[in-house]
């Protein structure tokens, strides 16, 4: 019900929305909770375990009860707090954890089984028989108990992440936050003021106190207008600061488009911010806490501060007849605000015996609230006066206040522990819990409006002086400055029915006492045993009361009992916002070569190589399997000519007077003797003596080299070269940079390779111009290119490199020319077969556990000079007969396929681990030699050529006898590449 003349909502702008399939109307400025309350809706949710009807309790993000699901289809969002969701004309919300609706829920039957569902019931009831747990109990419990559900569909709605930087981050825009931001803003500091609500002002919007002779809301609007006019101040509404991290970094979630009926297409739903602040002020206010009494979860039982907020800010009467229950003066403030709004107050129940009756209201001082009546909506409360007399007080709303808990969560995110303050019966932050962050106002346990403003301004002054800025004169306005008088009171003793602490997770005082009785006396154990504080609200309003009950049950004080740890995030954050930009291809960006389009156009299936995509094979009409295409491409290269994009290999440009000497140090073999126009194969070790990578390096000119790395290790090698240069060679004239993406490079392999090239080059070449392992500049189609005479196939081979922008054109031309010579494009499958036939290694072989000795390249470790990894490669155990050494395998008979990953055993030995002799790394069918081939590591393998081993693949069920041979199966003399 709306109250005439009250509230800050825009009565001239009605807004229609849907809840649980019914149409409602609210006003611009309403939350879903305020609009539903105004429409008389009392049940907004069902509880987690017992499916009890629940109404809204709070007016903020700490809401434990009114959790709803918003939206339909893939984008539906569960567990949205009705107190945070603003209404808009497209809003379609529904209750959850209930069927068919929150008003009638068949699972309500759970409430009857409550005696079996007490703390720890999972552990006690369902542990036996064990196999029933996964198949029967757990699915049933999960169906019956729970919160909202995800759609289980892929959601491609737009989320974002962003970064921001400031001198001072002010968290919260109540009286403390506004004064802090104003002080720092006037000083010219870069300020970010983050407010969780849609509107700045905090409690000033919800209370009736005047500030500087005007309403709190008007005063706040004036300050916000001044802040908005300052170019150095950034105002962020709908932004919850969720975590405090190292180095002054804060996480924050901004609800960007969730309040709009038709958000623009480019507007994200939410944005996750990382805010880096030199200083921060936490002015996040306080949460009012409930008192545990029998059936205190009835719809209509609300926090007193929330009742005042609904009356003063939204102009909504939460009930027609309200009773007020509390242990402090805020209860009296509530009575007066209700009276001013014309709402009937049926009684004030104050647990303090010395409470003074407000005018015109019946006071029950020192009374006990023994029960609340009305399953689907409060009808009356039953009170036992001090003299034992029972009074039934009619009310459809109970405004309750057990005191306030400072919102100090962020101060605990870096392991800080708050301290207990007896006078206000709550934990308050200790200074210095988060470096650079101070706490002001109610978050610091200072509750009066004037006190908050003073602390906010002072905190900003301190921050400004630490930042070396002058402090401007900011006058504090006149405002309420009353002391909070409170008597610690957590639960009504000896309740006849369950009394709730954690409403969201259905934890009662009985559960906490049961935990203590079963010796879960530590607050962390109690939490896990009862699930207290583990719901989406993380026990914001219930944790302190729960540990007070635990303290009582274990006969300790509250400070000794301690408090559970608060961890980020302060409010739930959707994974979509945290991982914004990481959905689909954002998770693994695609690196495409310049030939990509041409390969796809030829029907090549593309396979991933790291982030790169490379063609597997190029199917031709009539070829039914990849093997047919692959075999044809291998024969094509061996007999005619093939073209393959090798741009994905790492290319590192190395220059400087000391570049040759630097290469000597990173490679095992010598490069300083390499002459311009020559290319050399190099082997690179890690400092621990294990092979890191291999590849060729060309000398392009005096002091100018181009190193190639494998595709897989390109990043690692770049990192390594930078490390070696900076750590071990400071002062040397050597410079490195990756040019992988600047050059498109294509292999031209096969007996007709030179013939193909000469149809293209402006000046034809012969063997003398570019001999084997030579390189030089050539001109092709009017541009300068680099030509290298290197071969990964064993055939006459060239690689031609052009600036990447010419790659697509050159590739198409090369393939067309190759086809006119009876050749064509070849893919990764053929490339792999060609290199296995030649015994060339890849990272299948140099997989991080093999030494130069293992691959037969120990001769490449120069004795004349030091190099990275040399000392460690000489360690005992890294050479010798016991090492598994690279060998070739040929199955007997040749037609028997073998698989990589299979293990090797002596013939006749049982194929078990202790008899293991080695393993297979690469396999193929060789169309050149008409046999299956394998590369393998075999103990003492080089001495076992021409013997036989047993190959067993336990995984695929193969058992094949193989002949051990030299790993170079084809053209061992290398005449074809040199020819």
């Amino acid at each position, binding site marked *: 019900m709306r109250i005439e003349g009250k509230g800050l909502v825009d009565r001239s702008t009605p807004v229609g929305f849907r809840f649980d399939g019914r149409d409602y109307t609210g006003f611009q400025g309403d939350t879903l909770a305020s609009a539903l309350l105004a429409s008389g809706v009392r049940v907004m949710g069902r509880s987690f375990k017992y499916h009890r009807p629940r109404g809204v309790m709070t007016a903020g993000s700490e809401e434990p009860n009114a959790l709803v699901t918003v939206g339909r289809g893939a984008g539906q969002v569960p567990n949205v707090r009705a107190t945070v969701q603003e209404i808009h004309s497209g809003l379609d919300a529904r209750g959850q954890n209930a069927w068919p609706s929150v008003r009638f829920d068949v699972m309500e039957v759970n409430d009857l089984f409550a005696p079996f569902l007490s703390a720890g019931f999972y552990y006690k009831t369902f542990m036996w028989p064990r196999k029933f747990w996964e198949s029967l109990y757990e699915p049933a419990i999960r169906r019956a108990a729970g919160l909202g559900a995800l759609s289980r569909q892929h959601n491609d709605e737009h989320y974002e992440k962003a970064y921001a930087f400031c001198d001072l981050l002010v968290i919260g825009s109540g009286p403390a936050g506004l004064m802090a931001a104003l002080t720092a803003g006037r000083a010219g500091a870069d300020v970010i003021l983050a407010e969780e609500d849609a509107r700045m002002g905090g409690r000033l919007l919800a209370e009736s106190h005047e500030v500087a002779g005007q309403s709190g809301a008007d005063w706040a609007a004036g300050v916000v207008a001044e802040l908005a006019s300052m170019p150095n101040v950034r105002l962020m509404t709908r932004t919850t600061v969720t975590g405090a*991290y190292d*180095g002054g970094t804060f996480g924050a979630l901004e609800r960007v488009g969730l309040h709009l009926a038709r958000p623009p297409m480019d507007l994200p739903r939410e944005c996750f911010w990382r805010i*880096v602040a030199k200083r921060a002020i936490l002015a996040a206010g306080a949460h009012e806490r409930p008192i545990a009494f029998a059936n205190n979860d009835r719809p209509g039982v609300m926090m007193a501060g929330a009742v005042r907020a609904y009356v003063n800010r939204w102009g909504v009467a939460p009930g027609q007849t309200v009773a007020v229950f509390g242990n402090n003066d805020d209860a009296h403030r509530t009575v007066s605000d209700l009276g001013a709004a014309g709402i009937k107050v049926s009684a004030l129940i104050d647990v303090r015996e010395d409470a003074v009756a407000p005018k015109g209201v019946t006071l029950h001082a020192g009374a006990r609230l023994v029960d609340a009546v009305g399953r689907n909506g409060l009808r009356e409360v039953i009170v036992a006066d001090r003299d034992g007399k029972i009074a039934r007080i009619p009310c459809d709303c109970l405004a309750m206040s057990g005191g306030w808990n400072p919102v100090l969560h962020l101060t605990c995110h870096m392991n800080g522990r708050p301290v207990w303050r007896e006078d206000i019966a709550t934990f308050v932050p200790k200074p210095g819990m988060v470096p650079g962050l101070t706490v002001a106002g109610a978050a610091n346990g200072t509750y009066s409006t004037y006190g908050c403003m003073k602390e906010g301004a002072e905190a900003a002054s301190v921050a400004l002086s630490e930042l070396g800025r002058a402090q401007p004169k900011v006058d504090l306005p006149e405002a309420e400055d009353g002391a909070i008088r409170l008597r610690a009171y957590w639960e009504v003793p000896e309740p006849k029915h369950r009394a709730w602490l954690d409403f969201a997770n259905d934890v009662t005082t009985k559960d906490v006492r049961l935990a203590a009785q079963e010796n879960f006396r530590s607050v962390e154990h109690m939490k896990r045993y009862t699930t207290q504080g583990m719901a989406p609200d993380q026990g914001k309003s219930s944790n302190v009361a729960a540990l007070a009950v635990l303290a009582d049950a274990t006969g300790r004080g509250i400070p000794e009992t301690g408090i559970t740890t608060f961890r980020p995030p302060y409010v739930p954050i959707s994974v979509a916002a945290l991982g914004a930009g990481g959905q689909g291809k954002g998770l693994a960006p695609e690196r495409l070569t310049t030939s990509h389009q041409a390969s796809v156009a030829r029907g090549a299936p593309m396979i991933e190589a790291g982030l790169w995509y490379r063609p597997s094979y190029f199917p031709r009409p009539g070829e039914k399997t990849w093997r047919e295409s692959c075999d044809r491409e291998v024969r094509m290269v061996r007999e005619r000519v093939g073209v393959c994009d090798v741009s994905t290999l790492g290319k590192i440009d190395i220059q400087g007077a000391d570049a040759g000497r630097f290469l000597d140090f990173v490679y095992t073999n010598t490069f300083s003797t390499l002459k311009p126009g020559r290319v050399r194969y190099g082997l690179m070790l890690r*400092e621990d003596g294990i092979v890191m990578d291999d590849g060729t390096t060309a000398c392009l000119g005096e002091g100018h080299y181009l190193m190639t790395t494998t595709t897989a290790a390109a990043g690692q090698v770049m*990192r390594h070269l930078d490390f070696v240069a*900076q750590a071990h060679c400071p002062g040397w004239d050597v410079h490195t940079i990756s040019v992988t993406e600047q050059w498109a490079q294509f292999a031209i392999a096969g007996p007709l390779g030179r013939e193909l090239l000469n149809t293209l080059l402006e000046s034809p070449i012969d063997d003398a111009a570019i001999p084997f392992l030579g390189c030089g500049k050539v001109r092709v189609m009017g541009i300068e290119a680099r030509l290298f005479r290197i071969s990964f196939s064993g055939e006459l081979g060239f690689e031609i490199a052009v600036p990447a922008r010419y790659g697509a054109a050159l590739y198409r031309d090369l393939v067309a020319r190759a086809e006119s010579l009876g050749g064509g494009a070849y893919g990764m499958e053929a490339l792999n077969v060609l290199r296995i036939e030649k015994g060339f290694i890849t990272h299948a072989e140099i997989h991080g556990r093999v030494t130069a000795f293992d691959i037969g390249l120990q001769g490449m470790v120069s004795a004349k000079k*030091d190099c990275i990894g040399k*000392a*460690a490669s*000489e360690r005992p155990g890294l050479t010798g007969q016991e090492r598994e050494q690279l060998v070739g395998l040929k199955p007997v008979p040749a037609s028997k396929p073998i698989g990589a990953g299979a293990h090797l055993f002596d013939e006749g030995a049982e194929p078990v681990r202790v008899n293991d002799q080695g393993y297979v790394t690469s396999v193929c069918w060789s169309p050149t030699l008409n046999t299956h081939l394998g590369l393998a590591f075999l103990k003492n393998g080089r001495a076992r050529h021409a013997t036989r081993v047993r190959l067993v693949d336990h995984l695929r069920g193969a058992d094949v006898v193989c002949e051990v041979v030299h790993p170079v199966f084809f053209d061992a003399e290398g005449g074809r590449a040199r020819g």
Partner: protein
Amino acid sequence: MRLNCPLCGDRDLREFTYYGASVYADRPEGGWSEAWDDLLHLRDNPAGETNDLWYHELGCSAWIEVSRNTVTHAISDTRLLAERKPAAKGAKA
């Protein structure tokens, strides 16, 4: 977490690649010895001040030695690896 790259200034953690304790940059001279074993395999695990290596991979490619506290996470100093003064230096000129 933020790291101050001596060349680029204050930058987000995500731009850097971590590489363990900075003693790894103190390469012994000569063939295999116990000093090599220490370099490769032995690391302190201090609760408190430590120096470690970070590579500004998504920035300027500088290797940086960072002094930080493993308990408080406070970073007290950063410097270019190329400009530090190590106890001993391998790779003779």
